[in-house]
């Protein structure tokens, strides 16, 4: 192989490699956007007097969600009808992409739910813990979220 051929080959390999690497990178980025893309459309039914529910809706909006807020004084009955255990009602009921989300569930847990897509009806964060988003600007400390569905109740996240 003469010098010019070596150089040409090197250039071709370099250019080809660059193109391939770039293309692979672009494809990888494209795949990432598809895998990580979950619904951001969420509807919240809440007691019109619930201030922390509005704060929670604001929190979700800052995390990129489009929130539809519905006044419903019977949201607790709606929650039970949706399958949320009466012993573990959150302060509102939300629906997103086929799942029910009860209470002040942090955004990263919702993301996980929509990414993992377990065979459950939904998740709930009972009550209104002081360290939950909506009660605080962001989650602090540990929160225990429960899954509920036909198979009963289980701990979905405790972190």
């Amino acid at each position: 192989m003469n010098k010019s051929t070596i150089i040409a080959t090197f250039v071709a390999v370099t250019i080809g490699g660059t193109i391939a690497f770039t293309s692979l990178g672009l494809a990888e980025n494209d795949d990432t956007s598809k895998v990580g893309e979950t619904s951001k459309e969420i509807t919240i039914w809440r007691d019109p007097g619930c201030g922390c529910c509005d704060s929670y809706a604001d929190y979700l909006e800052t995390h990129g969600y489009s929130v539809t807020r519905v006044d419903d004084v019977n949201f607790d009955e709606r929650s039970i009808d949706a399958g949320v255990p009466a012993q573990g009602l959150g302060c509102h009921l939300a629906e997103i992409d086929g799942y029910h989300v009860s209470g002040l569930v942090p955004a990263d847990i919702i993301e996980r739910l929509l990414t993992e897509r377990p065979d459950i009806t939904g998740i709930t964060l009972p009550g209104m813990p002081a360290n939950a988003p909506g009660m605080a600007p962001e989650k602090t400390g540990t929160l225990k979220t429960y899954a509920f569905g036909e198979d009963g109740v289980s701990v979905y996240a405790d972190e």
Partner: protein
Amino acid sequence: MSKIAYPGLSRRGFLAAGAGAWLTVAAKPLLAQATAPDPVLGFDGDDLLVASDRIRRYALTDGTPQNLSGPGIVQALATHPDRPGLVVAGLASGGVSISEDGGQTWETRATGLAEGAVDAIAIAAGNPDLLYAAVHGDGLWKSENAGGTWSLAMDRPWLEEAEHDLLTLASVDLETGMGGIWIYAGTEAGLTRVPDCFCRWQDVQPGNAMDALASGETPPAEFPLPKGEPVRALAAAPSAPGILYAALPSGLWMSADGGVVWSHLAEGSASAVAVHPGNADRLAAIMDGHLKLSRDGGANWVAIAAA
């Protein structure tokens, strides 16, 4: 209806009382006049206040009854263990009247408060300047300056497909998990409660019920108050957070765990109850129109009767 009688406390009977009772004398009914609501009760230190269209103060230490000039027809009464002499009254004519001297003198404070009868009153367990008032047909109001000014805190609870007036209120010194404590309320449709940040009215629930469901273990015991009965009066024991007493048509009920499990203390239609500020076993209640006292947590009752 016959006129309400507030008979005096028998000193002899009082001094003769045994370990299970303060008094051992017969009672006369405290039937209300048509124009006066059922009497309400409150302890101010060791003294018992009985209020309706007038106020009577029983000094239980020596059995001395005292008639006081009330602020009007009183429908609700609240006192506070940290501020002896403070008596807050909800008036049938509207407004809240406050006494700083145990009911001797009164000042009505209603700036900003909605018009309407004040059905229920509570003083925050940890803050005698924080008052709550339930206005008939309106909602729950609060004052952070001892009644100086009022603002709406919460609409009435929506229970069984309807809004319900609050018949009674109690500030219960149990943490909500939200940085505050609970306000319990009795309604015609039963018991409800709201955190003092006023997120929403909600049922009383045992704290670890979901963990029991998740683990498959036996869920914590629950024994709510009987369904379909009005909760006419509530009293929270200042000396023992979590101990609650409730007056219902089916009798007097008691809970030691913040209202998850209730036990039946006494038969008879109960319309009022109060608990001593320093001793959760010392009770006063009106049952079947009789004013009765217990000093053993409701195991034994005796009636205040004419001297």
